[in-house]
Every structure is written in structure tokens, then in C-alpha cells.
């Protein structure tokens, strides 16, 4: 039909501009990508490497995996002793199970306290609702350490709660709340309650009230309507809230350290102690690797599956 147009200058300018734009995009990707590779991913490779080293006294406090012998042979020494210790010494297994138990229990308690609160806030009139939400979010912006500390003063043997109960004559021996699992439960629920309430509120607030009205109209009693309509529809919020509480609780160090007893071993605390008290970096690394494989990887997988399911669900809704 037409003769092919000669490649115009204008066309070439446009091509050059497109190339420039593409390289700009590449830069925007490369900078955070490079940063995370160097400062996030590479460190885990090092953790893995050092978990196979052996403890020694010196700087750094571990042996090299790769050494050159006199004959210039490359020798790679992998020490599995750290992992063997995980299996042999029951202390580690107990700490893992403790972490799961305490984190799970606290999550459940937070859900039981948080759900009615989120529901009440979502049903509140507009004005009070903003204030209530503000009150939920506010503790998050204040120091976590300070909030845990507030309970130390309350729960200790000679703390306020015991003093009050003793003087009222309700108990005659101080309760040992701080220094038991209960102290840890209280600390976790207290610290992470806002993380439970916010996602629950977000789903409950979006819930169309006419659905409940329809259920009532069809003869469903309020309590039944809650169980058959509200609760199932708020499941995404329940799952999100539970994940937000459970995940940080499992690896928690500060709360068991300050509010738990000497024997409340959670895995985060074990790792801390191996590192700071025993100065055994290889064992600390091995604990970290096992934690990654047994806790973090399943959680990430779960979240990945969840997020893949979520768009399908939201699309189904009009």
C-alpha cells in the first residue's frame, strides 16, 4: 500500500525517551531491591552458615566453615552439633511448644475481648465512633516498652494489685501473676489488642446492616443472626486480627522477660539468652534457622495462600 516511511528524527527521539523512562523504572526497582538483598536476605544466608559452625572463644566466637589446609586444599567443615542439641536437649522443644501455647492462648483471649469491642465501635453512631477508634489506636503510638512496664508495677508481688487485694482482705498471700504464664498472657493481650480490634472493626464496619435486617425479617433471632450472618462474614477480619497478634507474640522476647517467670521459656527468649548470656552464636543461629523453618515459613505460606484467595472473594461480591 504505502511505502514504509523513513525512520524520522522524531521517531528516534521518542525511542530514546522510552529507553530513558525504562532505565528510570529500573532504578526505582533496583535501589530498594538491592537494599533488601544486601541487608535482609544476605544476613539469613549468614545465619544459615554460622548455624553450621562451632563455638569457640574469640572474635568472632565461631569457627570458619571453609579453611585452607597446608596443602592448599579447601576444607569445608559442617558442624551439625548445634542442630543435634536442639533435638537432644528438651529445653528447646519445650520452649517452642510454650511459645505456640502462650501465643495461641493470648490470641484467643484478645479475640474474645476485641470482638465485642470492635462490634460495639462499628455499630456506634458516627461521632462517638471516631473518638472510640482514636482511643483504640492511641496506645499503639505510645511506647511498647512503657506499656509493658506499666503492668510490671501492677502485677509484681509487691505491686499495686496485690497491695489492693491484700488490704481488702481478699487474699492473704500475694498472687504470683508476674512471674507466671498469666503475666505473659496479660502482657501480650494488652500490647496487641489494638491489632486485633482494627481489622475486626474494618470488616464489621463494611458489613451491610440490611443483611442483618434481612435475617431478622426472615425470622432469625438476633443471637442466631449474629452466628449465621455476622460471624461468618467477619471471618476475614478474625483471621487478619489473629495473625497480627499471634505472629509477633510467638517470637516475643520483652514480655516474657519482664512479666514471665524465670521458667517461662519462650523461643525468642531462648535465642536471646544463647546469644547474650552464653555468647554462643552458632547455637543462637541454629535456633533462628529452626524458628524460620517451623514458624515463619508456614506463616508466610499461609498468608500467601490467603492473599491469593482474597481477590477472588472480593470479586465475587458486587
Amino acid at each position, binding site marked *: 500500500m*504505502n*511505502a514504509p*516511511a523513513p525512520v*524520522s*528524527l*522524531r*521517531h528516534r527521539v*521518542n*525511542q530514546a525517551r*522510552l529507553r530513558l523512562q525504562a532505565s528510570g523504572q529500573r532504578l526505582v526497582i533496583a535501589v530498594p531491591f538491592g537494599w533488601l538483598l544486601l541487608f535482609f536476605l544476605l544476613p539469613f544466608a549468614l545465619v544459615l552458615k554460622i548455624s553450621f559452625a562451632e563455638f569457640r572463644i574469640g572474635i568472632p566466637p565461631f569457627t570458619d566453615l571453609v579453611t585452607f589446609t597446608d596443602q592448599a586444599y579447601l576444607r569445608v567443615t559442617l558442624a551439625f552439633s548445634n542442630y543435634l542439641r536442639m533435638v537432644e536437649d528438651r529445653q528447646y522443644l519445650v520452649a517452642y511448644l510454650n511459645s505456640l501455647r502462650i501465643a495461641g492462648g493470648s490470641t484467643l483471649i484478645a479475640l474474645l475481648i476485641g470482638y465485642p469491642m470492635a462490634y460495639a465501635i462499628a455499630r456506634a453512631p458516627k461521632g462517638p465512633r471516631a473518638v472510640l477508634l482514636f482511643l483504640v489506636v492511641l496506645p499503639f503510638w505510645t511506647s511498647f516498652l512503657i506499656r509493658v512496664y506499666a503492668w510490671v508495677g501492677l502485677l509484681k508481688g509487691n505491686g499495686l494489685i496485690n497491695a489492693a487485694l491484700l488490704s481488702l482482705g481478699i487474699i492473704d498471700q500475694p498472687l504470683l501473676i508476674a512471674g507466671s504464664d498469666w503475666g505473659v498472657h496479660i502482657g501480650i493481650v494488652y500490647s496487641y489488642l489494638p491489632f486485633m480490634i482494627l481489622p475486626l472493626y474494618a470488616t464489621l464496619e463494611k458489613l451491610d446492616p440490611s443483611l442483618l435486617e434481612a435475617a431478622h425479617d426472615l425470622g432469625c433471632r438476633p443471637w442466631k443472626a449474629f452466628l449465621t450472618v455476622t460471624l461468618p462474614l467477619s471471618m476475614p477480619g478474625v483471621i487478619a486480627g489473629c495473625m497480627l497478634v499471634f505472629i509477633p507474640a510467638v517470637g516475643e522476647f520483652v514480655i516474657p522477660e519482664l512479666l514471665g517467670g524465670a521458667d517461662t521459656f519462650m523461643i525468642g527468649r531462648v535465642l536471646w539468652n544463647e546469644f547474650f548470656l552464653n555468647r554462643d552464636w552458632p547455637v543462637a543461629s541454629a535456633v533462628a534457622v529452626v524458628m524460620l523453618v517451623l514458624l515463619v515459613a508456614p506463616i508466610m505460606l499461609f498468608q500467601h495462600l490467603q492473599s491469593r484467595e482474597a481477590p477472588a472473594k472480593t470479586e465475587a461480591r458486587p
Partner: protein
Amino acid sequence: MPDQTKPATDRPVKHPPDLPGCTKKLGPPIVEIESVVKKFGDFTAVDGVSLDIFEGEFLCLLGGSGCGKTTLLRMMAGFEQPTSGRLLIDGKDMAGVPPYERPVNMMFQSYALFPHMTVEQNIAFGLRQDGMPRAARAKRVAEMLALVELERFALRKPHQLSGGQRQRVALARALAKHPRVLLLDEPLSALDKKLRERTQLDLVNIQERTGITFVVVTHDQEEAMTMADRVAIMDQGWIVQIDAPQAMYEYPNTRFVAEFFGDVNMFEGVLEEDEPDHVRIRSDELPVPIFVGHGISGREGATVWAALRPEKLTLSSEPPNQPHNWAEGVVKDIVYLGSTSTYIVELTSGKRVRSTIANHARDVEWTITWEDRVFVSWTARSPVVVTS
């Protein structure tokens, strides 16, 4: 530097179409689309569209949801690149030309007003990009505000405006640069019915006053009829027919167009006789043949369809005195629409047809009502025969 912008001389000179019943004179083609294809992965959104848009015209791209209207518009604006084919604006090939260098502007379906800028700043945005001096800019913005009657709202932010006001800001912003072509993607779809009808006339007015070429995407057939000089009907990435609204209505070239563009009764039949001055069609749905007063140069024995608009069917209680173009049936429903009424008649063959009668035509003796036996008839000039 050799001038590459001049249209190649070997290209045929294109003449604008005559617009029946319209005093407007169209200029030379301003947008030329040549066999443009757009694929998203395996999916073909625009499938070989060729279309010339002439200077000064008001063109409507009409089609159902997902037929590729927006994609075609976005290719003109430069947000999508054609997979193949050429797109020229003012004779210049637009391949690789980014949106910010094209002499067209777009009004977005969502309006896309800048939420952090006032109405005034929104309208001035495009002028500012061109480096227009402050005084000239202020003057143009004032003109635009006057054009869309928003002078009092100049200092508001978009979220402080009603839907209709936002729509006018979007229009003013797109018009401010005096683009060669204004592209509007479903500009009225977010307005309520009353406002939409008023705004249709406003758009036509503004188009005539400014003389800017308008390309409006819509899925509403009545809207296209009200506003357009020409309508292009799209289906599954194709342009099926392009014509003035009147011609489109009277002479649809396919069943699809006839059914999409207004109400129609469609009779399927076999072409029995095809002479230069008439056509005879035998249909199982009718007791007598259909006789059409012009030839169609089809193959005898082929399956064809006769399309009849409801207002072309007349009802009578006596059998019409003609050997063709009628049928007998029973009135099943009457839909009263104010100025007209539509009668739904079930023919003996079981087919239901619609006949629209102007209510002023029903005199006192009009007695046809539910369950009456009636005769439906039409003249030889009424049917349009389509072969696909």
C-alpha cells in the same frame, strides 16, 4: 530538515460525508485510523478498525460494554499503542508519540479531577504545561468557567462539587487547551437521567460554538442519536456500521445494528424473487410474502431478514386489501408511554411483534384492546432487508 509531517502525496484525498438534515460543513479528515488492532495478551480488544474522523464533526462511538470503545479512544489519546495498524492525527503518524505531545485531549469517565487543586487550578493545568503566560492563562480559564457556567465555583476543590459540576469541570479542563480533537469517554454515564438529557444538549451546543471535533464514547443509543453527526457502532472490537443517526436507523446494514439501534421486528425468510425494483421474501412466520419496494442484489434462495420498525406497523380490525405485507394476530399487551402506545401482538405463527401508535392518532372510534383479533400491515417501503 525534510518535512515529514506533510501527508504523503500518494494517499487518496478523503472527502467528508454529507450529513443529511444538517447544515454543518465538515473539514478534511483529522484522525485517520487504518486497520488498527489492539491485543491484550491473547485477547483482541480492537480487531482491525478503520475509521476517518473529520474536522468539526461530532462522532459517537456506540457499543455494548466491553466491545473496545475505551481501548480505541485510549489509542487515540496515546495511552495504549496499537498492536498493528496506523493511527494518524492531522496526517502525522502517532506511533510512539506520548500522550503529552498529542494535539488531543481526553475527558475521563471518572472525570479524573486533581483532588488537591481547585477548579481554577484544574482548568489551568494544561495551559501551565504549555507555558502559557499568566495573563493569557487567567483569561482562558475565565472563558472556560463561563462556558460551563461555573464562575462561582472557581475556588472550590473537586470534593466540594456535585456530580454535574464535576462533569463540567472535567469538560472545561479538557477544552481549555483548544485541542484538535476532544475525546470523551462516557461523559454522561455518572449523571442521573434528567441531568443527562440536559447535558446532552449542552455538549452539542458547546461543540458547535467551539467547532472542536468531538469523539464521544457511549453505550446509550438514544444519547448517540441525540448528539451525534455520525454514529459508529462497535461490536466485539469491530466497527459494524458508521452513518448519520437517521441513516443508521432507517438503513441498518446488519441484524445487529437494527436490533441495537432502536426497537425492531425481525422476520427471517428466504429470498424468493430479487428484481431491480422489488424483492419478495417468503417467511414461515407470516401467512403472506413480504414485498419490498427496492432491489437488494442478493442470491435467490438465500436466507435474509426483513427488519421493520414498530412505528411502521399499522393495526386494523379489518383484513387489509393487499396480497402481501400483513399478518393476523391477537393483542396480548398494551404499553402506554404517554405520547405513544406500543401494542404487542401475537401472530398466528406464534411470533410476537410490536407496533407503536402515536396516541394523537387514536381517535374516538379506536376500539382495539386486549385479546382483540387484529391485522398488522405495512407498506412496501417500510422493511429493510439485511443478509447477515
